[in-house]
């Protein structure tokens, strides 16, 4: 057993392994206050929630308080390992500033009240508006951090009960493009990849995916392969010099906003050199001719000029991808939050279809998620889609869902796609949505162009309900605040990106009067008097397991079939991958085996969209294009970004994440080790840009766009010249200002600067192409930026002390998992 400073060494120690071998077990654990395992009263099964990896863990409980965590050796996802956010983030549960009583706004101030008063206020306002204006006055905005049972119930309430299609999750900001890209190529959501693909891949390509920071345990798996015999080659596409870039065989750092051109050049090379599987293409895809035509002129030289990447590097990357025997790819925000998001992500799918690399070990695609339960937001219909990947433009699917819910099909809104959050805000802005119910997310920090967002959410004519565990920036703007229980305080299931379902059991009671999100939603449904068509209550369950059983029925026969799962089956062992049913009782490691897809016109979730305009493809068009349900090779032309640099705004601004924080820091900012590792906002700039302006490490800079201003110390890093990077985690809850910058110069949220624009296909807002200016406010005087040195923000100049966590960040590692 070793003790490691897991702030200084986020990925812990190496356990090397070779291709085709099983990843060795290493059990990581951390207990607070010098406690040992002997002091723990009980261990309660769960999985990780401060990222999307879905690592199995057990929660340590002593005296009915959470005191630590330990990775589950038996779990297929992590083989015992945990990341820094998992080891330390749970401490936020015990934070003294948790919300413990409902709040209502009286004479402009939020004051404590009882549950009846708060819930009646919410239900009465909703009923009033239903009466006065109808369901389109009401919207729901949820998260990627609740449990499956809660999403399914929420979707049922919104779609089946109230009848509004104004339903979305903050997954719109993180993984809407993952779903959209899968729907374009395979006509259905659901990940073709499996984490075990890392064990046998000979090439791992990461597209805009800084896996080292966003999924630390998955990256640990890659590092262990890299340290073992016959390591894979790694391709990295990222404008920053991330840990992934430093480990890569080829690092392509394109100009932000040019991903589609780069991808088209890679595809051009694959086709031109014949590195494609013509038999597979012929048997299992449609659209090859169009793709070939679209990429015909995208030579590496053409792309080099647009993307500012050497043509030789593009050729080298194409050679490695084109000659891979087992290619695994993953994609994340560098593509999803960029201009032409879906078109770029679809190109990655195209590569796998062209090479026939699907449905077998080592040949997976992970269109990555950002949040722990984002997959469930999508599956259960809490992102506005209909549950279990039903197609809103297929009347038979609507009829089927209406049968499951025992409602009239007309009750389920399906006349157009769901209203994504940016469009919801537009309707609130013009006054036609007047009630918004926000669960477990913080739009007042995470959405683009914050000044506008604050104006919209602060309007008197909007009734804003916020259900959360802390008084977030958004909660401070609410009319009613509902205190919720969180992970460890309630039971439920959730599913990670490789379709692994975990059970997370209640370990302790929530603080004060806080209640689980499921209980609150069911209470809301009852107060609203929501009924099925026979007059019985619409929501027919009263506890998580009941909701899960309801969901199983809803998923029956659909791609994400959960009917073979149960709470009992999920207890004790490892997580299980869906589809899990009579045919696959132990779950399914690889889908799309032998080119069998879920793309048949009468079964598929989506007919696709136009890659540039986003207009949905009509059923008849899809039937003509893809009558037998093959994979669709979708071509897209490169379109220049909408906001280009100018003399006034000469930099491209991108925003992103750091390893130590999650979302808007509501939890990680309250975990001392994590907060100390990345205590304040910074801005990254390349060495040459800094030299041109005589900036030095730590200088206080002011970054501006036409939307606003942020002040931050500069970290001179390995970022591409001409590009600035700001982490998006930092808002105002832990400043004197509370919910917003008091004066403009107090701005520190990256989204003060971002623009209101989104990918027309996935509706994911664009956080990677804004034009920005920068000036120095004051010199560093020897004080470097406090940005982490272990990550993508590593300094390239000397004199910056390394990020360490000290004694309080020492966690245990037990290789082999037994003592």
């Amino acid at each position: 057993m070793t003790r490691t400073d897991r702030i200084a060494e986020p990925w812990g120690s190496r356990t090397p392994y070779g291709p085709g071998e099983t990843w060795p077990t290493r059990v990581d654990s951390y207990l607070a206050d010098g406690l040992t395992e002997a002091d723990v009263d009980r261990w309660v099964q769960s999985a990780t929630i401060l990222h999307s990896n879905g690592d199995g863990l057990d929660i340590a409980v002593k005296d009915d308080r959470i005191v630590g965590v330990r990775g589950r050796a038996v779990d297929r996802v992590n083989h015992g390992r945990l990341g820094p956010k998992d080891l330390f983030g749970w401490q936020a549960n015990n934070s003294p500033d948790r919300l413990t009583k409902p709040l209502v706004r009286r004479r402009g101030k939020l004051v404590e009240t009882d549950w009846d008063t708060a819930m009646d206020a919410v239900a009465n306002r909703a009923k009033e508006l239903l009466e006065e204006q109808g369901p389109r006055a009401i919207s729901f905005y949820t998260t990627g951090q609740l449990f499956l049972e809660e999403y399914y119930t929420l979707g049922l309430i919104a779609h089946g009960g109230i009848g509004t299609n104004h339903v979305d999750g903050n997954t719109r900001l993180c993984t809407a493009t993952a779903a959209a890209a899968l729907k374009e190529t395979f006509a259905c959501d659901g990940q073709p990849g499996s984490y075990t693909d890392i064990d046998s891949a000979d090439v791992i390509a990461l597209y805009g995916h800084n896996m080292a920071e966003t999924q630390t345990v998955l990256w640990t798996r890659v590092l262990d392969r890299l340290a073992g015999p016959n390591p894979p080659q790694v391709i990295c596409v990222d404008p920053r010099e991330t840990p992934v870039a430093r480990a890569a065989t080829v690092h392509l750092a394109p100009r932000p906003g040019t991903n589609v051109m780069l991808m088209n050049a890679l595809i051009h090379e694959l086709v031109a050199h014949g590195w494609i599987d013509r038999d597979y293409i012929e048997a299992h895809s449609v659209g090859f001719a169009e793709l070939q035509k679209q990429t015909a002129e995208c030579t590496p030289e053409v792309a080099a000029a647009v993307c500012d990447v050497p043509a030789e590097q593009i050729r080298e990357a194409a050679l490695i991808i084109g000659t891979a025997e087992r290619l695994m790819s993953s994609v994340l925000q560098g593509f999803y939050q960029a201009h032409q998001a879906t078109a770029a992500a679809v190109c990655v799918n195209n590569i796998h279809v062209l090479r026939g690399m699907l449905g077998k070990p080592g040949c997976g695609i992970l269109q990555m998620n950002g949040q722990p339960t984002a997959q469930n937001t999508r599956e259960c219909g809490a992102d506005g889609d209909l549950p279990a990947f039903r197609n809103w433009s297929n009347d038979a699917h609507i009829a089927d869902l209406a049968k499951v819910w025992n409602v009239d099909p007309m009750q389920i809104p399906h006349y157009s796609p769901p209203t994504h959050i940016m469009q919801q805000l537009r309707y609130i802005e013009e006054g036609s949505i007047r009630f918004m119910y926000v669960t477990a997310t913080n739009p007042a920090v995470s959405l683009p162009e914050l000044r506008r967002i604050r104006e919209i959410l602060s309007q008197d004519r909007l009734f804003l309900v916020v259900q959360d565990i802390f008084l977030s920036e958004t909660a401070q703007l609410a009319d009613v605040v509902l205190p919720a229980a969180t992970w460890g305080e309630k039971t439920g299931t959730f599913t990670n990106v490789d379709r692994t379902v975990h059970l997370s059991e209640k370990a302790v009671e929530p603080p004060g009067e806080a209640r689980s999100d499921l209980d609150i939603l069911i209470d809301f449904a009852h107060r609203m008097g929501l009924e099925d068509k026979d007059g019985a209550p619409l929501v027919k369950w009263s506890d998580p397991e009941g909701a899960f059983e309801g969901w199983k029925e809803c998923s029956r026969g659909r791609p994400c079939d959960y009917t073979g799962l149960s709470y009992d089956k999920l207890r004790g062992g490892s997580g299980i991958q869906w589809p899990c049913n009579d045919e696959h009782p132990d779950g399914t490691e690889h889908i799309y085996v032998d080119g069998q897809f879920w793309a048949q016109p009468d079964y598929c979730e989506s007919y696709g969209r136009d890659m540039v305009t986003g207009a949905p493809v009509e059923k008849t068009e899809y039937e003509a294009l893809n009558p037998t349900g093959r994979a669709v090779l979708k071509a897209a032309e490169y379109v220049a970004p909408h906001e280009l640099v100018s003399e006034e705004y000469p930099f491209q601004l991108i925003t992103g994440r750091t390893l130590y924080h999650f979302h808007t820091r509501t939890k990680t900012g309250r975990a001392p080790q994590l907060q100390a590792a990345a205590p304040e906002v910074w801005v990254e700039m390349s060495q040459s840009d800094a030299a041109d302006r005589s900036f030095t490490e730590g200088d206080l800079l002011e970054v501006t766009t036409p939307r606003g201003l942020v002040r931050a110390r500069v970290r001179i890093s390995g970022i591409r010249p001409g590009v600035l990077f700001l982490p998006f985690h930092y808002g105002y809850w832990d400043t004197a200002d509370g919910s917003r910058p008091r004066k403009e110069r107090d701005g520190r949220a990256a989204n003060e600067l971002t623009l209101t624009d989104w990918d027309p296909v996935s509706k994911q807002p664009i956080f990677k192409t804004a034009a920005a200016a920068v000036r120095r406010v004051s010199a560093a005087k020897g004080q470097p930026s406090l940005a982490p040195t272990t990550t993508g923000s590593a300094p390239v100049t000397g004199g910056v002390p390394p990020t360490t966590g000290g004694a309080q960040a020492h966690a245990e590692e037990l290789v082999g998992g037994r003592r």
Partner: protein
Amino acid sequence: MKLDMAIEELHRSENHLVTVLTSMSDKHKTDHEVFYVCRDMAKWSRQHVADLAGIGTDFGLRLEPEASEDPGLLASVKQRTAELVGRRSTPGLLLLADLRHLYREAAGTSVDWELLAQGAQGAKEKELLDLAQRCHPETLRITRWANAYLKVTSPQVLAS
């Protein structure tokens, strides 16, 4: 041979489509998807105008290769007006009217492409046919977008 007339007519209607798209974009600056997507689609029509002017010389035509557009001042007045009325509910109705107008203009242009393609086939004008086959799908995509956006917007505007 009346192909020159068909080219000239199409040049006129694509030119008009550029104006319709950019004007619509400016008028709906606070509807961000309308603002940006209309601008992206206008690029197609602008290219069509240039391509038609190019091929027009083979048919004895002298057509302007650059689309005539709103002067910058007018565009910024429209954008400013959009921002000022963006908080009211009437822009929803205006948007429906503009989408309907765009749909009809794009559909009309699409029919003109159909005519030109048929004429080019009849006259065995390969280059002209290639041009029509390249451009026509983009004009169709504009009609599809207008139709799809009408479907999305109309329930909120008409039924609430």
